[in-house]
């Protein structure tokens, strides 16, 4: 059983509280992503799971065994570092077998393990080279090989792909996912790249300022963000967040928006009608994803929860699969995602379809979700 449970873990460096009580449970075979901006405490947390740093209070248990006071080598973990941290003075083979050698595993068993891992990662031809003779992608594989050789209860990845170029990163991402499916290993993976977070994770813990803001599956985090920070952090291009006054129209609660001219009304989804009505007359932040403001071609025809508006286009960014169109709503730039065959140009007025079913609303001061 390779579970990980983190219970109310706090870390303090002098007066500074870096982790403010983290609670995370990772199931056997689960792929957990820790994601957040720099300085959010995600790497600190990973170091503490590894035992490279001590916790101030709380409890960390791996496979049901509390490891608070165990040194890294006794925690049954392996870690892949951003810098790969290959031993420069050793061949690839010795890099992979170093941990086994230290643990006094018999020679024959060591060789067997190195060969198995090398085959799995397709680095058999590199075994006798030095790390300095390898490319970035190859070093990355060796670093993973070193972790795999140990066959630990828990794998820790510290931004392992951020030193690779874009193309290689996509490849290695796919490979890590495949590896996880094949090995069924429990993995904690730190990244600041929200695409990695979305594609790899079974669950994502979105962190900021030493706290977990949301812990949920990637789709939940994307569709149902817990607060303003998560909404703005996950998604690329990010969710549009616009301040708007709450109003009533035709017996429904919603928000008023304008694009410099006439005001129009966006009704809130049924589920938040109750929650939002308490805010009648005051301002809230409404969140709408770029792909929820689109054109007829991509989204079919008008329905009750979709409304069509004409808006003036400020800037057009073609990306290939989609074209991003910037408009102004309530004096805030808003990104819309339209089909590339819709040939709009800046300065034009374009017909845009607003999908209201996934509108989210936030308290502008407390930044919490209004439900």
């Amino acid at each position: 059983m390779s579970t990980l449970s983190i219970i109310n873990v706090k870390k303090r460096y002098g007066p500074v509280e870096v982790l403010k009580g983290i609670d995370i449970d990772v199931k056997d075979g689960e792929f957990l992503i820790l994601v957040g901006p720099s300085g959010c405490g995600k790497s600190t947390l990973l170091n503490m799971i590894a035992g490279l740093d001590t916790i101030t209070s709380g409890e960390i248990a791996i496979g049901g065994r509390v490891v608070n006071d165990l040194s890294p080598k006794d925690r049954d973990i392996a870690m892949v570092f951003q810098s790969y941290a290959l031993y420069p003075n050793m061949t690839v083979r010795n890099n992979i077998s170093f941990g086994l050698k230290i643990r006094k595993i018999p020679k024959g068993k060591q060789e067997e393990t190195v060969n198995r891992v090398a085959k799995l990662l397709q680095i058999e031809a590199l075994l006798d080279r030095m790390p300095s003779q390898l490319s970035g992608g190859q070093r990355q594989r060796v670093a993973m090989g070193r972790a795999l050789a140990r066959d630990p209860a828990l794998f820790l990845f510290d931004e392992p792909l951020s030193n690779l170029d874009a193309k290689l990163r996509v490849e290695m991402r796919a490979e890590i996912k495949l590896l996880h499916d094949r090995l069924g290993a429990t993995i904690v993976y730190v990244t600041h790249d929200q695409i990695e977070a979305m594609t790899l994770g079974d669950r994502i813990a979105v962190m900021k300022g030493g706290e977990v803001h949301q812990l949920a599956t990637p789709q939940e985090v994307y569709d149902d963000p817990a607060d303003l920070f998560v909404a703005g952090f996950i998604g690329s291009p990010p969710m549009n967040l616009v301040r708007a006054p709450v109003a009533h129209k035709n017996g429904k609660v919603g928000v008023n928006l304008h694009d410099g001219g006439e005001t129009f009304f966006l009704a809130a989804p049924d589920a938040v009608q109750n929650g939002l009505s308490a805010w009648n007359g005051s301002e809230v932040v409404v969140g709408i994803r770029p792909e929820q403001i689109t054109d007829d071609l991509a989204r079919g025809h008008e329905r009750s929860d979709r409304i069509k508006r004409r808006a003036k286009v400020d800037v057009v960014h073609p990306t290939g699969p989609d074209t991003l169109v910037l408009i102004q709503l309530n004096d805030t730039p808003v990104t819309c995602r339209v089909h590339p065959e819709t040939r709009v140009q800046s300065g034009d007025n374009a017909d845009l379809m607003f999908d209201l079913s996934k509108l989210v609303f936030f308290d502008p001061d407390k930044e919490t979700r209004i439900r």
Partner: protein
Amino acid sequence: MADTSQTQTAGPQWLGRAVLYALLVVFAVYYLMPLFVMITTSLKTLDDIRAGNLVALPEEISFAAWVKAWGTACTGVECNGLKGNFLNSVSFVVPAVIISTLVGAFNGYVLTMWRFRGSDVLFTLLLLGCFIPFQVILLPMAQTLGYLGIANSIPGLIFVHVVYGLAFTTLFFRNFYVTVPSDLTKAARIDGAGFFTIFWRIILPLSPAIIVVSVIWQFTQIWNDFLFGVVFSSGERQPITVALNNLVNTSTGIKEYNVDMSAAIIAGLPTLFVYVVAGKYFLRGLTAGAVKG
């Protein structure tokens, strides 16, 4: 390619080159002249020295002065040449260099990879050691050596030079290890390696370049040291620098310039040897970490 660049700027480039080479030659001669005089004088006979001029080549090459400087020249009352003092110097310089380099490497390792509360303060204090003049510590050091019972002995000289060299070697290794990613030690810790295993198996094998820097620096400093040698040793335990001084200053009627010159070269040869052998690594070590590699 050379042609086109020359036709464009032929005049000024030619002139610049000429000035450059002239200057280089002047400086080279200026620096090589003393060495030339030393070598030629050491190979002359006394008559030759008296008859000829300073920069003239020897009439006939004679190694008699070298043999005398090594074996029979008088350094004070004794007339056994420099060979005993040469061995003296070797016998404390080698251990002092090895010990101070190893301890410096260990200090650097701890100060970068295992930082503790106050480690930066400790490093700053150690650095101050680089700025303490030799003279300041003479008296306290003499007392310390007395307490330790190693005054006026080879171990005493080793101790003095190790203590005095630590500040420098620690600085070298600490600044080198700062450029070594700390992820390396983390990875080794997770792999199960302990404090000393990491030092011996991971960190020290990364360090040949900086070890060479430290060895050259320490060897030159300790071999050439005069003050500690003259204060903390006497008689037959004196290092070669002190013996050389005594040899030159011992008056036996005639001033034997050829013997003086041979003795000076003998005293200088080991440092020259270390530079030639390790010089290639010296430059590489000094610039280590400057370029990501």
